[in-house]
């Protein structure tokens, strides 16, 4: 079981909670009317850097809903040392907010002082998975809260890979004894870009290790390559995959990410409502089919 098993990772929000990524342009509207949203998630780097820490905004958010932390610069697949000072700053922020968990991506982001500010892939091999797991263990050892690793969306796959993406992901999470932050949109984007069945991916998931799932919109280029842009509503295919995930592993908390081309706060809350509706539709269909077969 994950290292942080002594803590209840579901504390602060219900197992079927639906949250949204809270971005500064939404602060005023979200604080005025947070109904329809069960928890917030914020980008940790926005509040741990050298710039102003809008602590009053985060404190206000925390007074209304639980606030989970999500990162974009941990560099788990990197070859530079883990930035332990960064993890300690995240740890302090988590303590201040009583955050239920922290997550970051299974990717690399920097090399020798150069920062890509992107989430970059590597080949999927046992050796690289073991390297990432050792780094994830360091991260978890510095955090007082559960650490979840998010699966990446990618546009390139490599000849040197010896594992499928889901085997690679599972190996890292299992060896490091940490948690999963499962991004359903990322599974779909990678599946379409590399030609695998996203349902095979879902079937590999140990759902009791999922902190919560992410949903987001993506962009399709003219050549068909899908790019994880977080600038649009969740597409129908991803809602379908979410329904499958719920059937396989639900209930689990769900979070809507929307980072670019931001909609109104009301539209974002509608997206959260759609997630709730999805599960009901699935349940209704299942109920109907059971009744039909009984008749």
């Amino acid at each position, binding site marked *: 079981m994950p290292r942080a098993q002594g803590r209840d990772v579901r504390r602060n929000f219900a197992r079927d909670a639906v949250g949204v990524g809270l971005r500064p342009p939404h602060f005023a509207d979200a604080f005025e009317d947070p109904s329809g949203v069960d928890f917030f998630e914020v980008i940790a780097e926005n509040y741990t850097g*050298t710039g102003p820490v809008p602590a009053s905004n985060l404190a206000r958010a925390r007074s209304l809903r639980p606030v989970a932390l999500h990162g974009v610069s941990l560099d788990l697949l990197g070859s530079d040392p883990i930035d332990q000072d960064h993890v300690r700053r995240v740890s302090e922020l988590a303590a201040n907010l009583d955050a239920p968990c922290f997550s970051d991506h299974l990717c690399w982001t920097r090399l020798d002082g150069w920062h890509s*500010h992107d989430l970059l892939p590597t080949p999927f091999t046992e050796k690289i998975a073991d390297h990432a797991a050792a780094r994830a263990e360091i991260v978890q050892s510095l955090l007082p809260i559960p650490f979840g690793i998010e699966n990446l969306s990618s546009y390139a796959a*490599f000849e040197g890979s010896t594992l499928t993406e889901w085997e690679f992901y599972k190996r890292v999470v299992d060896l490091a004894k940490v948690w999963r932050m499962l991004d359903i949109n990322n599974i779909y984007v990678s599946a379409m870009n590399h030609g695998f069945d996203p349902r095979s991916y879902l079937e590999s998931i140990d759902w009791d290790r999922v902190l919560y799932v992410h949903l987001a919109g993506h962009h399709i280029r003219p*050549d068909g*390559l899908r*790019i994880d842009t977080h600038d649009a509503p969740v597409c129908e295919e991803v809602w379908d995959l979410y329904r499958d995930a719920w059937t396989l592993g639900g209930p689990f908390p769900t979070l809507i990410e929307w980072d670019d081309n931001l909609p109104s706060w009301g539209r974002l809350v509608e997206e959260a409502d759609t997630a709730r509706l999805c599960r009901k539709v699935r349940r209704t269909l299942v109920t109907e089919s059971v009744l039909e077969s009984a008749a």
Partner: protein
Amino acid sequence: MTALRDFQERWADSTSAPLRFLGQGRAEVPAEDYDRKLLASILPGNGVDAVARLGAYRLQYWFRLITLMQKDFPLAGHLLGWEEFNPLAASYLKEHPPTSDLDLLGRDFPTWLGKQDLPALLVESTRVDLAWNLAFGAADLPVPGPEDVDRLAAGEIGIVLQPSVRILSASRNWFPLRISLAEGDAVPAGPPKPRRGTFVVSRTGSVLRAESVEPLLAKVLRGMRNRSWIESLERIVGTHPEAEERVSDWFSLGISLGWWGVVETSHRSG
């Protein structure tokens, strides 16, 4: 993990290779810039070849950085137009690759531009943009209030400039134009009319302001870069006795514009 580092070096070199700007908002992603070994290791599929797949990362890298430079330097973009601004920003970024903090991406842009044999007005516009950006991103000190009067009189605390306060001399007041550009308003082409002055940029909460100040006050504020309000005033009054009668007005102006912060005198005397 030598193999991993080797892979990542090839990747970083390939995806940070500059785009070729073609004009009319178009850019080419030249495949000859890619590391051959890296390219050969990327699997084609679903009708998308390795060049296009690596190119997706390269486009994202440059799109993200140039978009940030456009956002941080709207005055320069206004003067040049984006067609000219984008290749210039890309040349700067090639020499100043991003570090961990994207807020610092354009910090050296005015200095770099100043070495490029470009019009002084363009360089000045980027100094104004940078002052605005730095004011927005600066930390906040506690603001002085009525409860501080006794401690101030006892010398336990001092009044200093908020880190957000930026003082700069310019050939014209760029700030109304900058605010209009940030708000997406229609603005006339070209720079504002000349009107030399000293301007103070400051921030209260998330609201930025720029105020034109008289020369004597500018001297006091410049003196506060490494001194307290009292220390700086004492030096100015020593050489400009007429400043004494302005002190109360200046202090009130600073209160209303959020210039002042409070520090313990263990940090700074006065």
